[in-house]
């Protein structure tokens, strides 16, 4: 782990805001992270914490009215934030591809699986439909779908939820990406199917050397699958750390509270679980100080007056908390 190759992708001080009725609201603030080739980066946080946007803004998949205020995304020597829509489309699908949560809604119900699988190959590799088909059959086999040739002529409703998610993964792999961004790819699936899909993704990663950015709220999946963790809260990265260290010694009080609120096998049934009281701030309110301060069990005076910067807490580790100040500021 000491001799790292160059990062595949680097997000630097990225801030994004959304305008509603003319008034901009900051939804990402000063986000920093790197993804290295072949690594699984887990992005965790509660709903509305910015975890999905923090990943999808990399390829500028932004909601309507959103814009990048500052910062950049370096990928293959280019700043993705400054590319034209057309140049960016080349990156999406070919170099960086996406898998979304709901395979039911992200596949087109009136097109055959073959047509939908062929589309990225036709778009990015300039193949005709007939040329793309053998590759599509190969892709289906790769994701563990048997009888691939006949399956290509079928429609999404002929596939179970787990099978559809396999198809989505096959589509994401079509052009041999070096990064796949997966947004809650197994949340809608049964636990056994979830384990099968994650095993499949791990095997494909090993084979191709691609990196994976996995957005999830399931800390079990993070513990089992991730190399590196980003914790989002209120549009900021509160902690980033190698996964093993994160679980062993979380540096940020929010990370600690999150891990403590999980029911564990070692818990005594019936004893109250530790919870994080209160609610995350809404994006409209922007009180001074740390946005977690009103809920933080380790809060002290400074936290309410001034928002902490990111402090380095170790090798590839940082925490946005005054309690981490002992390290040196990044």
């Amino acid at each position: 782990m000491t001799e790292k190759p160059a990062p595949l992708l680097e997000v630097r001080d990225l801030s994004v805001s959304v305008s509603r009725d003319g008034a901009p609201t900051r939804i990402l603030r000063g986000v920093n992270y790197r993804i290295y080739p072949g690594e699984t980066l887990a992005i965790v946080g509660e709903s509305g914490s910015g975890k999905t946007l923090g990943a999808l803004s990399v390829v500028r998949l932004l909601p309507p009215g959103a814009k990048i205020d500052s910062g950049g995304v370096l990928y293959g020597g280019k700043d993705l934030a400054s590319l034209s829509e057309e140049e960016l489309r080349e990156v999406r699908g070919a170099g960086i591809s996406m898998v979304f949560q709901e395979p039911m809604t992200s596949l087109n119900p009136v097109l055959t699986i073959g047509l939908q699988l062929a589309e990225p190959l036709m778009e990015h590799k300039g193949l005709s439909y007939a040329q793309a088909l053998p590759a599509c059959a190969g892709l289906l086999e790769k994701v563990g779908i048997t009888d691939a040739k006949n399956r290509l002529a079928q429609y999404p409703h002929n596939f179970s939820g787990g099978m559809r998610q396999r198809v989505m993964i096959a589509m994401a792999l079509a052009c041999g990406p070096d990064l796949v961004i997966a947004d809650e790819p197994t949340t809608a699936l049964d636990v056994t199917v979830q384990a099968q899909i994650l095993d499949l993704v791990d095997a494909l990663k090993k084979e191709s050397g691609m990196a994976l950015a996995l957005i999830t709220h399931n800390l079990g999946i993070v513990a089992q699958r991730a190399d590196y963790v980003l914790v989002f809260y209120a549009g900021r990265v509160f902690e980033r750390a190698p996964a093993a260290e994160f679980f062993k010694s979380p540096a940020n009080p929010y990370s600690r509270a999150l891990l403590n609120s999980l029911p564990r096998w070692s818990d005594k049934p019936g004893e109250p679980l530790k919870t994080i009281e209160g609610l995350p701030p809404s994006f409209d309110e922007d009180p001074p100080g740390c946005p977690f301060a009103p809920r933080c069990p380790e809060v002290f005076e400074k936290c309410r007056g001034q928002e902490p910067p990111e402090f380095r807490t170790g090798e590839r580790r940082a925490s946005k908390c005054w309690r981490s100040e002992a390290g040196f500021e990044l």
Partner: protein
Amino acid sequence: MPAILNVDNVTKRYRKAGGLFSSGGELFTAVDGVSLSLEMNTTLGIVGESGSGKTTLAKLILGIEKPDSGRVVLDGKELSSLSSAGLRKARRGAQMVFQDPYSSLDPRMKVGDLVLEPLRAAGEKIADGEKTAAALLEKVGLKADALRRYPHEFSGGQRQRVAIARALATGPRLILADEPISSLDISIQAQIMNLLNELKKELGISYIFISHDLAAVRYLCDFVAVMYRGCVVEYASAAELFRDTRHPYTRLLLSAVPDPDPARKTVLEERRGGSGAGPGPQACVFSDRCPRAEQACLGGRPGYEEITPGHFVRCCRTHT
């Protein structure tokens, strides 16, 4: 302790939808000879994958569906023997909380009306609606000023609290909660689990907790029934089930749960490369996926055996 619920060898079949011009397809057994009982003031967890019959069983328990055979006895009354008025009365004693607090609450109704609706639907005259509603909201940790607000003004966790207050309105003895925490954030899940436990202590109610989250089931439940293809394949107290897991399907489910401790690596205990065609009509329902399946499992369906007091397993290989 007296039982709040007895489910006795209940089977429910549906006809699969046929084509446009056919009179209907083959029969599909959603719940297959299920027997369960639930003691007062305890929590029964029902786990299993989608399509295993969990929700159909819940509907049978609430009298929303009628079993093809077998009996459901809720709080001393056999549901299928009741008139529709009697059934309506029995249902007041058993209420439901659904997975998604976004779609289970009518967005056009104020919270005060939402929590009183079950009482009004039961034809009850409410003397002081505001006071009654405020008392219900207090039980679930919401302030009285919530009464005049609409569901969209609340977060997911608060909405689930409203749904629970609504379920409490008729003073039920049993609450069926179908995946009540799975759409919520982790920190909020813990809050709702704590609330369910507090209400159990305070009001003496019983729960049926339908979930695929085994860590939550272990934490909340006194007893657990594991369902697979309409059958209960294993039943035991939660402590026993997780300590001495016997059925290969329960083991598979447990092996699929990603442990939040990275030092405890989980490996899926499933036989790979099955045909996906499902088990034969005579075979054990799990035989096509079972890593321990042998010839005997294909020839006959195993009985439901009590292997140690209170621990039931449906598996040919229990003794080997």
